[in-house]
């Protein structure tokens, strides 16, 4: 039994799944990104002055990439698990010789793929806007740092999506988590604004939001400057990924439709 072949097969299938519905999984996020760039980056961006003289559009692009990555990695896992529950596909996996780690790996990697895919499109759209506004492309300051935060941020939310998908009893539950918890955390994590200009209460509250560290890590990767200490952001992001991974494994083993 080739374990790698198992993971590869499930990964390919999960990627094929989201590519089968491109309007829903890729098209809609792209339209979102364009709207955010148009409204916040181009229209309102001129009136926003940041302390370190970074153009607001440059500040916004990494935030939107982070948001695309997190949202899509999470949505991919939850929709895959929920959909599979509804059409009995989950049973298919439960009777095959997958270990929980293999399942997690295949599903999370496919979620990361979707997150990176949409993030890359957001990056390309953002660069197009930036070029027309500034006359040149936005350079990437620290590619390795950027890759680190993209990968662990995407993996963390892919795993979190598995856990939420396994524990949710309906799409309404998933929607509630996405809209009432995840979205506020993304917005308060600094996608659209810098922590410097905020009230001290919100500044300290943000430090309990793991998304704040992921978003700022990605921003540091692109711009070379950030609101926080990079090392702390790296450790918090990795720790958050580990917690989400454990949650995903736990949900697969002990969730309502548990798997051995």
């Amino acid at each position, binding site marked *: 039994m080739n374990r790698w072949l198992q993971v590869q097969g499930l990964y*390919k299938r999960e990627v094929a799944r989201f590519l089968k519905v491109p309007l829903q999984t890729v098209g809609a996020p792209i339209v979102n990104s364009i709207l955010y760039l148009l409204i916040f980056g181009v229209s309102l961006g001129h009136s926003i002055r940041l302390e370190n003289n970074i153009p607001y559009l440059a500040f916004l692009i990494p935030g939107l990439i982070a948001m695309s990555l997190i949202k899509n990695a999470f949505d991919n896992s939850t929709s895959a698990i929920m959909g599979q529950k509804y059409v009995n596909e989950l049973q298919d996996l439960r009777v095959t010789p997958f270990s929980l780690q293999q399942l997690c790996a295949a599903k999370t990697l496919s979620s990361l793929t979707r997150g990176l895919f949409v993030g890359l499109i957001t990056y390309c759209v953002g660069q197009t806007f930036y070029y027309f506004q500034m006359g040149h492309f936005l350079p990437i300051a620290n590619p390795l740092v950027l890759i680190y935060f993209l990968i662990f941020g995407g993996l963390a939310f892919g795993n979190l999506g598995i856990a939420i998908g396994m524990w949710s009893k309906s799409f309404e539950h998933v929607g509630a988590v996405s809209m009432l918890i995840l979205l506020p955390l993304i917005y308060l994590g600094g996608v659209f604004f810098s922590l410097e200009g905020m009230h001290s209460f919100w500044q300290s509250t943000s430090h309990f939001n793991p998304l704040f560290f992921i978003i700022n890590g990605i921003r540091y990767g692109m711009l070379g400057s950030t609101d926080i200490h990079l090392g702390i952001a790296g450790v918090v992001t990795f720790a958050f990924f580990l917690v989400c991974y454990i949650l995903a494994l736990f949900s697969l083993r002990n969730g309502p439709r548990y798997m051995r």
Partner: protein
Amino acid sequence: MTPLVIKNLTKKYGRLVAAERVSFEIHPGEVFGLLGPNGAGKTTIISNIVTLQSFSEGSIKVFGIDVQKNPRLAKAHIGFVPQELIHHGFFTVEEILKYHATYFGIPLDKEHLKYLLDKLHLYHHRKKLVNQLSGGMKRRLLIIKALLHKPKLLLLDEPTAGVDVELRASLWKFIQELKKENLSILLTTHYLEEAELLCDRIGILDHGRLRKVDTTEKMLQEYSSKKVSVTLCSPLGKIDHPLLTAQSDHLLDFQVPNEMPLSQLFQEASIPMNCIQDINIKMGTLEDVMQTILRGEE
């Protein structure tokens, strides 16, 4: 190595005992039928074998591998056809089969896939989305999926439920062919003629307990009787015989043990052979066996 050995399997849902000290085994190349009324525990037992559920007591071994201690290795030997249909909304038949083969960690055997698609009449539908298939086709797809990795033990949980007569007959033929290939099969079904035709041995479950396990032949012999209807040329007087169930002027109905010769019956009942115009014999079925065993337990 014995394909399946279940010893003292006990599964409880809270206070409800779904399976109580169930023990049986399946021999190589054998079709074993697990029969019983709804809620008897058939699906519970199958779910425990494929580790969809976990049990509190007993043991299940697939080719000597304990399914609780080493579920992955045990499941690699099992092909499972569930009761419920699976819809696979996004994929075609061919795509879903290619992905499914990799789940067992073996490269896809294209020849084997083509053989199965041909055999179950899905080859010409392989490019269709699974959603576009009829219920019968989806059921055949489940069987192909279960056989893709060439398992040595096949679990069929009501594989012909809700399919038309023609398809049912073709599936029976296919199962008989699988048996010839030395595949061991555990079959649950509510169609007793299906069990009678396919199963070498039968276990009868009721309220989670295995009431009786024996060969189909012995079960029929022991727990069923034949119905003998004798048409007479002319009326006889009142016949007094313990096996007589109904009498009219020209017709006598007897419920006779399978092993009892008719000559003995006619002699005991004092029916002269020259008075007999016609004899109609209806052999006992598994339905009689089930009723006898379940009634006996009550």
